[in-house]
């Protein structure tokens, strides 16, 4: 264990996996100087055969990832901001997500796509999307949303060693956050949620950046005498439905917190799963705290307005419990 920044954990995972397996290659736009710092230093260590800058051509990069993986390599493709995933979406949705089925299982596609997602930094609509609902619906693609440096390391290593396409989604602008990271060979199996805090009154499922807000809300709530259970699914595909359902069966209440737009969000899907699987335990309506169905505005106050935050979560929880409190000005 050592305290590390989120981006260091990612960088460390890349170093270790590239050391471990010479078949691991990494490419993308400006990965050499590393605009997000996550790929920094790899070039000096591994050389241009294994890590290199590409031209700007996302449609081809995603397709090449498929071809290179089919030909026996473990591909890490860095796509910078998640919005650029749309530019290369064809090979993701039509090839990567479907080829294994279409070929009757002839192909494994060990591909890890790294992208920064989410708002909160006045990067405006074309650099702030949270794309995991789209990726979740495609099928055939693992979706990882590591919220801590340790999870970042463990999930990235697991993804690179796996045999399927995975999206590794880093929360943009949070690379400097610190956390304890296990040394060396640390992997996290997909589909295992982490229960960050046990509680009895209400279950709060939070994704990615929202985990931090959920934990802050839980603190507020405990001051107000409410015991919240905080669950981070860590991977949305595969999704650990059992842990979520078991928790709601205990607490009887659910708030799903998601940075994605509300319509067909991960929060919607989690709510649907619970409305089916834990229905008889439910004591209150299932609440979603998400981003409304808008593109991300630029102005900080407008962005703040629509973003989930600890107050929105704790207030929703108090309302579900039928306790009135004043929302603190956020």
């Amino acid at each position, binding site marked *: 264990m050592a305290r590390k920044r989120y981006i260091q954990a990612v960088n460390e995972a890349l170093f270790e996996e590239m050391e471990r397996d010479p078949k691991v290659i990494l490419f993308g736009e400006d990965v050499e100087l590393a605009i997000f710092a996550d790929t920094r230093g790899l070039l000096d260590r591994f050389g241009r055969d294994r890590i290199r800058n590409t*031209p700007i051509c996302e449609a081809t990069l995603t397709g*090449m990832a*498929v071809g290179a993986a*089919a030909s026996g390599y473990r591909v890490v493709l860095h796509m910078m901001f998640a919005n650029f995933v749309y530019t290369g979406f064809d090979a993701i949705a039509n090839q990567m997500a479907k080829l294994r089925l279409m070929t*009757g299982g002839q192909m494994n596609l060990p591909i890890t796509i790294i992208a920064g997602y989410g708002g909160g930094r006045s990067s405006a609509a074309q650099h702030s999307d949270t794309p995991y609902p789209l990726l979740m619906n495609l099928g055939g693609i693992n979706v990882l949303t590591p919220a801590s440096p340790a999870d970042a390391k463990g999930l990235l290593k697991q993804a690179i060693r*796996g045999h399927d396409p995975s999206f590794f989604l880093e929360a943009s602008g949070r690379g400097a956050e610190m956390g304890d990271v296990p040394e060396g060979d640390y992997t996290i199996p997909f589909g295992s949620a982490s229960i960050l805090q046990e509680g009895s009154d209400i279950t709060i499922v939070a994704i990615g950046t929202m985990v931090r807000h959920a934990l802050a809300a839980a603190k507020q709530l405990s001051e107000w005498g409410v015991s919240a259970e905080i669950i981070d699914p860590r991977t949305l595909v595969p999704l650990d439905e059992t842990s979520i359902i078991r928790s709601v069966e205990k607490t009887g209440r659910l708030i799903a917190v998601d940075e994605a737009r509300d319509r067909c969000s991960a929060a919607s899907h989690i709510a649907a799963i619970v409305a089916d699987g834990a229905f008889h335990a439910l004591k209150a309506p299932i609440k979603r705290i998400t981003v409304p169905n808008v593109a991300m505005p630029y102005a900080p106050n407008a962005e703040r307005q629509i973003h989930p935050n600890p107050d929105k979560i704790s207030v929703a929880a108090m309302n579900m419990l039928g306790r009135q409190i004043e929302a603190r000005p956020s």
Partner: protein
Amino acid sequence: MTTGAPKSTTERTPTRNSAIERNFALTDEQLLEMYGKMLLIRGMEERLGADRAAGNLPGGVHLYIGQEAVAVGVCANLEDQDWITSTHRGHGHFLAKGGDPNAMMAEIWGKKTGICRGMGGSMHVADVSKGMLGANGIVGGGLAIAAGAAFGAKLEKKGRVAVAFFGDGAANQGVFMETLNISTVWGLPLIFLCENNLYGEFTPSRTVTAGNLVDRAKAFGIPCTVVDGNDVEEVWKATAVAVERARAGAGPTYVEAKTYRFRGHMEAERELLAGGKYREQEEIDEWRKRDPIDLLKRRLEASGRIKVQTLKEIERRAAYRVAQAAAFAEAGEPADPDLSADLMFADHKA
């Protein structure tokens, strides 16, 4: 009908002319082998057309009839370890690359015994063990996949090459330019094999295409060749040179084969178009006079070196192989209906 590579490029690739020298002559065995393959493809396709008309196939088929010389001429230069990516019109590529006719036919019938276990069908026939990375339902979808396989081949340094088959219609997709660029900059062992059959679906290429396709590739400074796609020897030669360059580490080549599809874009096209027309019967008749199989047969006969019985025997074997494949397909069990959830991921159930 062949345009040479830009001077600068020729200089970059001294292997080129020697390659032409050495590869110039095809042996009779090779030619007869190609003749047999073309007949096999033709026979399989005609059978599929009949089966589609008879309602035996669950899905539609895009037939390759008329273009056999391209797939066969190209793949005669490839080993199993070399990669190809194909198109929605992929049966010919699959068979030319060495795919099993039985398994292909069964696939298109939707059977468990199909090469993709009935999960892919006509537009997704693939045989990874033969380097055939799949037909593709997305126009242009094979280009970047082939570039990726070529990148792998380059890193691997075992002399593998990749060939991307694509049509004149696909050449208007941006991935064409993108893959030309990255494969040239990275010196990838990739052959851009454009099958220019003058149409994309029901649209004549000239009405949606500016300039000559070959000039788009020339702009990147790579060798470019345009050949008669109905002449299997010409196709073979041009590809031999390109493959040699690729294996020698000299980078990508563009080869355009001018050819023509005798059948509709897809079977049952006439019903679909309800009287709509996009080409003249005269045009089809003109091209039929240059049927790639007849061309080769006449040439073999004219050579005087090949006995009539030899050709007859090859034709008989091809016909038999087709009948075999059809019987195999028909006899196969239906696909496993529960398979899909197991196949989506290697590491867990969907």
